[in-house]
Each structure stands twice: as structure tokens, then as C-alpha cells.
């Protein structure tokens, strides 16, 4: 899932100060699962913003809505009325959701209420960890399902650097060395020979370095007669 975290309330208050009617818009997708931008968080943040504005004796109306997913036009259409009533939208979605709303409603200012952090997993209750950097060409099969692009701080694909100590990364003693994890995993699977083949040069143009990406699937397009 995409993992995100709420921005500071006072910062949001400053950003929104110029708008009188604000729609706080939640998303029922990833940010609901990571407890950052679902219906509950919309309620909490809306209350907090109302309190913050009223403490300054400033008259703002904070409206609330949550849709299934902010990254799909089909669901965005459902909130046309609420968006039209608002002077601004505070989107509690990932960066994709915020931009979807802004593209669909170009006449209304849209602001992000969250900082989008990474694609990751719930490691334990209250702890989320990054697992994928969306590099565009998955190499997990070669590395025992441990991603060298995300788990190695230097994203090295051809072996470890010299900075690891006792299985920990030199970036932080809290951080496991990604290459230690890869080695241990492949050894346990009896697949260490996978590392004998030199990894080919990585085509980073498939990642964000190649510019804003787009995936087109002709088989999924709706063709008009």
C-alpha cells in the first residue's frame, strides 16, 4: 500500500486560511489502511481544524467527505456537489489522489493534507516499512524476494558496499543491511548461485528517472464502434 502521514495542523491552517469553506476529503484506499486519510482521520482532522480556526476567532466552515478512492474518476464524480460548495479541498489522499481531484476540478484549489511517504507494508501495529521503490523492472526474483533498490540504502544491485557492520547498514544502526538480508535469504533457499551471474546494467529510464511514466494497455481500452 501507499503509506502516508498527516501534515502538521498549524501548517494546514496557514495554507487554508484564505478559504472560508473547506472540504476535507478522505480516501478509502491505501491511506485508510495506513490510518492517515480515511473517514476517521477526516473526522479528527476536521474537528482539529475547526478548533484551530475558532481559537483564532476566524470564521471557517469545514466540511467532510470520504470517497472510495481518490485516484479514480468514477468515484471522484460522486462528490461534485460537495466540491462545488467548497472554496478549497484539503485532500487526505496520496499525491496521486490529490492530483486526480485537482485535474477533475480545475476551478477549485486543492491542497495535500498528507505527506506521501512510500510504498510499504504494515510491519507491526503502528510500524510501516518501505518495500518498493516502483523502479519499473522488478528484480526480486534474482535477489530472494528482498529488494536491493529499497532495502539497500545505496540501491546497489551488484553486491554490498563496504559500510555494513554486523548485518547493519552504515546509514543507521537501526537499519538492516539489505545485502545481508539478500545473502541470508538466498543461502537459506539454497540459491546463492543466483548471485554468480553478474547483474546486467539497470535501465533506470524505466524508473522515475525516465520522466513521468504512463502505462497503456490496449486490451483494457474501451474502443468506440
Amino acid at each position: 500500500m501507499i503509506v502516508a502521514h498527516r501534515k502538521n495542523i498549524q501548517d494546514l491552517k496557514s495554507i487554508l486560511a484564505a478559504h472560508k469553506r473547506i472540504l476535507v476529503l478522505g480516501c478509502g484506499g491505501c491511506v485508510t489502511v495506513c490510518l492517515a486519510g480515511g473517514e476517521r482521520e477526516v473526522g479528527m482532522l476536521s474537528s482539529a481544524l475547526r478548533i484551530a480556526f475558532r481559537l483564532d476567532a476566524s470564521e471557517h466552515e469545514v466540511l467532510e467527505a470520504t470517497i472510495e478512492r481518490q485516484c479514480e474518476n468514477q468515484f471522484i464524480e460522486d462528490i461534485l456537489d460537495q466540491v462545488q460548495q467548497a472554496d478549497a479541498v484539503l485532500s487526505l489522499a496520496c499525491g496521486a489522489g490529490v492530483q486526480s481531484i485537482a485535474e477533475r476540478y480545475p476551478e477549485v484549489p486543492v491542497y495535500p493534507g498528507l505527506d506521501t511517504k512510500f510504498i510499504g507494508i504494515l510491519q507491526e501495529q503502528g510500524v510501516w516499512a518501505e518495500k518498493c521503490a516502483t523502479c519499473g523492472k522488478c528484480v526480486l526474483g534474482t535477489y530472494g524476494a528482498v529488494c536491493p533498490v529499497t532495502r539497500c540504502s545505496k540501491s546497489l544491485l551488484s553486491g554490498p558496499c563496504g559500510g555494513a557492520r554486523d548485518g547493519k547498514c552504515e546509514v543507521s544502526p537501526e537499519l538492516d543491511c539489505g545485502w545481508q538480508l539478500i545473502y541470508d535469504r538466498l543461502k537459506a533457499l539454497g540459491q546463492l548461485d543466483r548471485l554468480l551471474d553478474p547483474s546486467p546494467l539497470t535501465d533506470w529510464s524505466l524508473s522515475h528517472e525516465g520522466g513521468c511514466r504512463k502505462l497503456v494497455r490496449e486490451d483494457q481500452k474501451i474502443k468506440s464502434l
Partner: protein
Amino acid sequence: MTDYEPRILALCCHYCAYTAADLAGSMRLQYPPNVRVLRLPCTGKLDAAYLMRAFERGVDGIIVAGCLEGGCHFQEGNLRAKNRTALVRQVLAEAGLEPERLEMFNLSSAEGQTFANIVRTMTERVKALGPNPLRLSTCNFELSTEPEVRS
């Protein structure tokens, strides 16, 4: 404000604090009449939104009262409430309202005296803090028990 009497909401677990409040009454213990007791089946039922909305509507202080840690009838309801209370305190502080207006206490159903002490502690604390600045002249505690109407 000389005639200021705080309005304090006590969200009490059925299995401990609510019974303790009952016991305090049976024991004829005196405690400030500023508290309004609301029973929850367990503090695990507490939603952070209850607390936020109550402050929005002008409550001066909130007591969350649950079982002793390890003694929850539903195993971990009070521990969940502890986290939620801590989260709301943090959000209130970020929004600019004193987090001291909200606190969670743990007690058993046999502690009538503890309940009375908690109410006294919170009443004195909230009196010193002054009224909730969000309290509107038109929104008193009795009125705010009616369903909220939102546009």
C-alpha cells in the same frame, strides 16, 4: 471569570469507573457537581471523535476512566483507549487547545474514593485553566445533548 464552573464529561467504563461512581454515591462521598457521567460498555468503545466533538461543542474537560491495566473485561479495551486519548491530546495541542483538559485514569469498581478524587483533581485543574475558549454563549452543556445539526 469568577462565576465560572467547569463542565466536565466523564466517559466511564461500565465495569469499573461507572460502578465506582455509583459506589461513591452509595458511600455519600462528596465530589464537585461539575461532572456529567456517560457510561461506555468499555473504554475500548471510545472513539477519538467523541473527544474531539465534545471539545468542539464547549466541554471544558474530559475524564476517560477505565479499568486498571491488565484488568479490562475485554482484555485490551482500556489499552486502546489509552492510545486514543494520547492521540487526541497530541492533536489538541497541535490545534492550540490545552491537552491537560483531557486525561485518562484507571481504577477498579471498588474505588469510590478514587473516583471522587479524580473528579476533584480534574475540576480544580480545569478551573485553573479557565473555560474552554470554544464554548459559545448559545451552546451550553444541556443544549449540546441534542443531536448536532450540520449543514
